[in-house]
Each structure stands twice: as C-alpha cells, then as structure tokens.
C-alpha cells in the first residue's frame, strides 16, 4: 500500500491552482473537468512522480465548519517539507503570502505556518541536523 494522493479543501479551485503552482511552485499534474468542479492535482517539482495533492472544492458544509475551527486555533491542514524555512518564508512574504507563524526553532525542526488564501493554513518544516 502506498500514499499516492492527499488533499486540501479549497474555496476556489482556479485561485487555488494559481496559488499552489505560481506562488508555492508545485507543478500541475491533472486538471480534469468534472461538471461544476474539476479533478485538479499538483505535484512537487522535486518529485513529479511522488504524492499528488488534490485541490478539492470545499463545498460540503461540514468541511467549512471543520476548516473554520482549525484556522481559528492556527492548526495547519497540511505540512510540506522544505530545505530552508527561513528562505521560503522570505520568498513567500515577498510574494504577498501572510504568515500566522514566522519561522520558529523547535529544537529538532524549524516550522512556519502561512495562509494559503484558499481557506487553509499550511505548515512548512525543515528538519535540522540532516547529514
């Protein structure tokens, strides 16, 4: 068994596709129209054959309540690995991304949390002390 797909629920799929590709730098993998919505997945440029991230429409009322509660407490819906949290923070702030938690050294990891402008908080992490 492998994890090939995970998802974030987004307010607006077109806006989310722009943010996740143009701002974050992921690559579009699938964009299949499915009536009102589309099956949109992105992958990391560093591992295009790796896990796909589905940009799923947040249409279910329970999804909205769930996301509202998470955002209120600052809890990220997804977490991405980066080589340098400080550098990504600087780059994304320059792109106009709003961080709710600046780079924070937690001992074994450095983390930061930003608003994806599509209704979610996203964490980026850098593991320290890797060879």
């Amino acid at each position, binding site marked *: 068994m492998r994890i090939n797909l995970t998802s974030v629920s987004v307010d607006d799929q077109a806006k989310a596709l722009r943010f996740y590709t143009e701002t974050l730098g992921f690559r579009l993998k699938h964009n299949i129209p499915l009536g009102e919505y589309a099956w949109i997945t992105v992958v990391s440029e560093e591992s295009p054959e790796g896990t796909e991230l589905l940009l799923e429409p947040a249409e279910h009322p329970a999804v909205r309540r769930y996301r*509202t509660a998470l*955002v*209120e*407490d*600052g*809890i*990220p819906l997804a977490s991405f690995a980066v080589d340098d949290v400080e550098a990504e923070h600087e780059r994304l702030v320059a792109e106009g991304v*709003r961080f*709710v*938690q*600046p780079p*924070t050294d*937690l*001992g*074994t*990891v450095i*983390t930061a*949390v930003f*608003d994806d402008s599509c209704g979610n*908080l996203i964490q980026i992490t850098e593991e320290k002390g890797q060879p």
Partner: protein
Amino acid sequence: MDIYRAIADRTRRAILDELVDRSGQSLFELCGRLIMKHGISSSRQAISQHLDVLEAAGLIRTRREGRSKLHWFVGAPLKAIGERWPIATDEDTSNPTEEGIEE
C-alpha cells in the same frame, strides 16, 4: 481569578514564557512550543483551558488576526506583586530562584 492562582502552575508559567518570547501566537503554535521546548505534552483542550485561566486573570489578551485567534502576554497585573511586597533598594537580589513556588 487572581493572578497568584493563575501563575501557580508550571504549564501556565511556560505559556507566559513562550508568549514573552513571541507575541501573538495561535493555540497550535503554543502547543508546539510547549511540547518541543518544555516537554509539556498536554492536550490542546487542556492548554486552551490554561489560556482561559490566564485570560481571566488579565495576564493574556486575545485578538483575531484574519480568521485566527492569537494570544498576547499582558504583564501589567503582575505589578500588583511588586507593589504588595516591594523590594528594598538596599536588598540583595542576587540568585533569584523559582524553587518554592511550584504548585
């Protein structure tokens, strides 16, 4: 809630330490700092209750930023301690210790 009860708890003191380190933290960030820096692995609900106690004592304030609720340390109520037991100017204040105020 009086400030003496509010600070008579190791976890609540650690929360204040972390909010002094950085103002405007979410519950998520605070919980991450408490577990990684202080080894305090209480549930989010438990930390949320500690925050309610600190807020009732006037030691923290909350504000919404975007759709997130963030927490700030407010030191003013602690002035009451120094006013009640003022430190004499000729007093030896070296070697301050936290011993003896554990709950």
